[in-house]
Structure formats: C-alpha cells, structure tokens
C-alpha cells in the first residue's frame, strides 16, 4: 500500500467537525521544542492526558496538546482529525497515541510526516487485544463487536496501586464508544509505513490486561525496536499511580532523539 492513489479522500472527503483540543503550553517562549499531540483511545478523551501528562510535558518545555475523538467516527475519520490538528500546529509535531489512539497515530503516520511518534500501550493487534479484553471483561467487550457500546472496567485499566476513589472517578468519565470504531480496532489488518521516516517509540506494561506483552514486542519490532516496559502498571499509563515514570521516559527519549 503506497497511499498515492487516495480515491476515498478525493471522492468522499471526511466531513469536517468541531474538534476538542486541550492544550498546556510551557511558561515563557524560547526553548525550541516541537509540539506534542496526544491521542486518546476508545472511551477516553483529552481529559485523560490533561490530568497529569500535558502539564508535566509543558513543565519540561514541550507545548502539549490533546485531541478528542469525534462522536460518530471510524478509524479513517479519527486519523483525519489527528492529521488536521497536527498540521494546524506551528511546527512539525510529535504524535503520541495511547491504546486504540496508538492505532490511530499509526494510521496518521502514513499521512503526516511526524517529527517523532510514541505508541503507548498500543492496540495494534486487534485480535490479541480482543482476546485479552474478552478474558478480562466479557460483558463490557462483546456488545461492542456488534455495534453496541464498549465498557471498560477497573481491572483492565488500572493497577491495584491506584486508590479506589481515583479509579472510580476516572471510570465515571469514560465515554461509551459505539458505532463502527471498536470493531474496526479489532479487525483492522495492517498499518501504513510512516512517511518521512520518523523515530518511533513503543511503551507499555507487561501487566497490561488489554495489550498482551507479545503484542507489544511485535508492534515494536515492526518499527525496528523493542518496547520500553513499566512493570506493575495497568493499561492507562497516563492515569495509573505511577504515571510520571512513562511520561518522563518518553520525554527523555524525545530529548535524545531530537538532539540528533
């Protein structure tokens, strides 16, 4: 798939929508760091990054943005929205996707030459993730395969270290995803080769109950590297008790890659 002949985009462009974008910018201009664009997965919104990661990245000098997924959309529309927001930022952007958001980023990378990309707890192997989700949460997962809503539970997303009231507060903010997207996440086949050859980092947890360890390894191998692992953490790396460790590792990696 070369992506040169784009009849879908030429004959039925994705309809425009008002996109929700959260932003935290570093204090004072000056340091020449590229903008970061965080992309949430199913059920999550920009709030999941606004909770800790945006502020932390901004404190370390990165202009940090998060985009919300449109209400009724499919993977094509989601990737379109990510590219639209990335292209609207002043400089070549770093794309950081979490969960199914990493799949959206992987698809957006075929359309936009990102400065770099990070796939956090990436759901790139839909069948593996579906199997894990069915084991951990059959009642919340199964209906989504038939157009019903996807409901995620505590054990899938967070480690035991996260206090219950925090976990409940986060779960109550989750939106239920209906429509085509959940099934597309499970059944999609390949992701495009990134344009512009950006460096790509894969991070995850061996104790993630959505993305199996083997899937992390395969995803990272596809981009020619090995995953960076944070044992003990749940799927939601940006909300779990130890949220600071993955984001610091991501920003350290970026500092190193961007210096080259």
């Amino acid at each position, binding site marked *: 798939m*070369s992506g*040169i002949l784009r009849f879908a985009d030429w004959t039925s462009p994705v309809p425009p929508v008002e996109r929700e974008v959260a932003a935290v910018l570093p204090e004072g201009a000056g340091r020449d760091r590229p903008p970061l664009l965080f992309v949430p997965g199913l059920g999550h919104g920009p709030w999941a990054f606004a909770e800790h990661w945006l502020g932390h990245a901004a404190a370390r000098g990165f202009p940090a943005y998060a985009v919300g997924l449109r209400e009724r959309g499919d993977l094509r529309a989601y990737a379109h929205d990510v590219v639209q927001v990335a292209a609207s930022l002043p400089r070549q952007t770093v794309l950081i996707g979490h969960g199914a958001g990493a799949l959206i980023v992987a698809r957006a990378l075929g359309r*936009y030459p990102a400065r770099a990309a990070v796939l956090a707890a990436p759901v790139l192997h839909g069948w593996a993730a579906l199997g894990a989700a069915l084991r951990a949460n059959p009642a919340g997962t199964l209906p989504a395969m038939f157009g019903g809503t996807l409901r995620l539970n505590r054990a899938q997303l967070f480690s035991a270290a996260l206090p219950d009231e925090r976990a409940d507060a986060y779960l109550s903010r989750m939106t239920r995803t209906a429509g085509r997207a959940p099934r597309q996440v499970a059944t999609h086949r390949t992701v495009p*080769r990134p344009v512009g050859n950006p460096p790509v980092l894969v991070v995850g947890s061996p104790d993630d109950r959505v993305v199996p360890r083997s899937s992390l390894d395969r995803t990272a191998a596809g981009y020619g590297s090995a995953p960076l692992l944070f044992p003990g953490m749940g799927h939601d790396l940006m909300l779990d008790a130890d949220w600071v460790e993955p984001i610091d590792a991501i920003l350290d990696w970026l500092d190193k890659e961007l210096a080259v």
Partner: protein
Amino acid sequence: MQDTPDIADRHDAVCVVGAGGSGLAAIKNLREHGFAVDCYERDTSVGGAWNWRHDRSPVYAGTHLISSRPLTEFPDFPMPDSWPDYPHHSQLLSYLERYASHFGLGEHIWFGTEVVAVTPVGDGRWDVTTRSTGGGVERTQRYAAVVIANGHNWSPRRPDIPGEFRGQLLHAGAYKDPAQLRGRKVLVVGGGNTGCDIAVEAAQQAGTVWHSTRRGYWYAPKYVLGRPADQVNDLLLKWRLPLRVRQWLYHWTVRLTVGDVTRYGLPAPDHRPYESHPVINSQLVYYLGHGRITPVPDVTRFDGASVELADGRRIEPEMVITATGYRPSFDFLAPELLDIDADGRPDLHLHAFARKHPTLAVVGLVQGDAGVFPLVHWQTVAVARWLRLRDTDPVRAAAVQQKESTRPLRAWSRRVVVPTPRHWFEVDHVDYLRTLEDLLAQLEPAGAAR
C-alpha cells in the same frame, strides 16, 4: 573544467531553484531524505505564483482554485478541512507559508537571490551561479544535483496579432483587479480558465464585454450533482471506467447542466471531452445567457482604435486583455540540458527527469486535471529517492536509469490532446500518479518493505 578556488564546494548538497509551491515541496522532501539543500528565490518571500505581492505572480484579486481542496492539497499536509471547496488565492498563499514554517524550510532558502547560470561540471555535479536580485557580485557554488522549480506561469505568451492597437493592451498576467475594468468596453482574448474568469469579472464590472475564442471548448461546471465536479470525475476514474464511457458521461453531464453552448453563439467543441485542459467555469454561460458577454471569433488584426475579427466584423474596445497563457522559461541553462525543442518545450522523462543528466530535474512542469501539489509532492519524493539510491546503490540506480530515461511519453501517458502549444504537458492525474507509484517502487531502498 578546472577547479577554481572561488567556487565553494557544497559537496552532497542539492540546489533548488525557486521557493513557490513546487520548490517548497522539493526542499521538504529532499531534507526528509537527508540532503542538505540550498534554495534560491528571486523574490523576498515564499509562494511563487500564489504570492500576489510578487511582480511576476499571475493571480488577480478574484482568483480561486479550479480544482477542489482534497485534489489540490499536499498529500502529507492537508489544508484545514473548514476551508471551502474552492479556496481563494490568499488562502493558498497562507497555506504555503504555513507549510514552509511548519517544516522549518525558511532556513534553507536564500531570498532575493537569482540563479543566473547552471552548468554541468562532469561527474554529474553542477556549478550554480547566483546573484542578488538587485544586482551585485555573482557567486558560484558546486552542487551534487539541481532541482528546477521556477514555475511556468510567469513568462507571458503573447499572441501574434498584426497591426497597432491604440487602446490599452495588456496580458492577463498584468490584470489584477476588476476595478481596472469598471465601466469600460473590454475585449478578452482566450478561452482557457483565465480568459473565462476574466470575461466573467468583466461581465460584472465592465460596460461592454466581448470574449474571443479560437475554438469551441467544453465548459464544465464547478459543481455536479451537488459535489465539486472533480470529485465526481474521480469516482469514474476510481471505477476505472474506460475513456470512451467517461467521455460519453461527461458529454451528457455538460449537456444536461450547461446545455448546448452554440445557442449562445459559441462554437461547438472541436474535440472530445478530456482532450484539452479542462475549462471549469459555472458563470461564463450564465453571463452569455444574460447578454453581458458577447462571444466573438479569433482576432485577426488591430487597426488603430478598432479590432478586426475572423468573421470580418470590427469592434472598438477600449481595453484588450490577452489571456493567452504562459511559456516555460529556463534562461539560466543551455537548452540541450533539458532537450528543449524549437518551441521552447523540454523533453523530460515524466515531464521531470532530464534524460541525459541524472542529477538534473524539473518539478511542477505538469498541467493536470487536478491540482498540481499532489503531483509535485510525489515528483519530489521520487527525485529525492532517486538521488538517495544513486548514493546507496549505484548499481541498481544505473539499472533504473537505463530502463527509465529512454521511455518516451507515449509509454506512460495515453492522453490524447488537441495539438496546441499549451497542451504538451497535459497529464491525467491518476495515470501520472500510477506511473510515479511504479517508479517509486523501483527506487525503494533495499529491505525497506515491512
């Protein structure tokens, strides 16, 4: 040629001539493939033809795109999807400015610097002589490759009309503002997109408007079935309908929407649909139907205050605007480097690669049935990939060069066009992109496939 101490050697760097849309794409894609780039731009800002501040820019106040946004934007940097289907030229300029700043291209561009000579030094390398646009000392630097992106819509092609005209005579390139037309008697010469646009603006502003065309055209509307016409057309291409079927559908679409243009006094088209550059104008026929535009045949001569037409009629306009197009111009290099023929037309593989000089390319010198930026994007990716392959795998590069460089135009373009001076670089965008796709696959670095 001997090495002279005053020639600065830029080693593996590539020289790009021009910082319009094509030049910017060249810089970005060459940088993405790891090349150092020096781009020379005679004006003081980016945008080329789309920058109305440039004295060579052909845009006029009312210029809008004639291809719709999805078929016009760079494939890896979309225009905002909140923009209209057919953006205004000022939006195009801001788009190109954002492209340049987003990818940090400005630091590779030398503004106010004109290329005066490009000469081969053997071994595939080039000496590029530049000088400040205001004059001053010339400077020569040596490059590994040269990519020419100097545009083809700035050197006016003026019609050869005998006699002297006493009124105001100007080429469309000098037409900027409908205020120039207000209340006057205006003759617009030329049935291309620009000629039709100006005739429509004249119909809204001028006192009397004549529109002279030499041949009959297919005047396609901008919208068909409630959608931009090019998007509907691409649906036919997606389904791979044969040309004859598409011509038949086109014929009937125009017949049912625009109607029979001979009713307004226009000549019937003398060619089939898709055999000339499409003329896309929904308003021309509207103003013909309101009597605001009078169609007239070819102009045969000027005679003082009057203009003589091919049917023997004489009219007396105060102003004549010739929308007779532009010609490509490469006055900084020897014509044989690009195999330029007596009519000034280069013979380049895929309208881009010099056949005898593997490190010389021209980008953006194509006229498509869609926007040019998608074509230019993949052209420049192909140029960058080609130059990279020459570095990393000279054996395979030589094989590709041998196979590709001698392929004639007919080998990839089945386009049949009317034999006029301005249709030689007409391409069908889908055919053209398929051909580039094939070339890009051949240039793929070994082991890149995943």
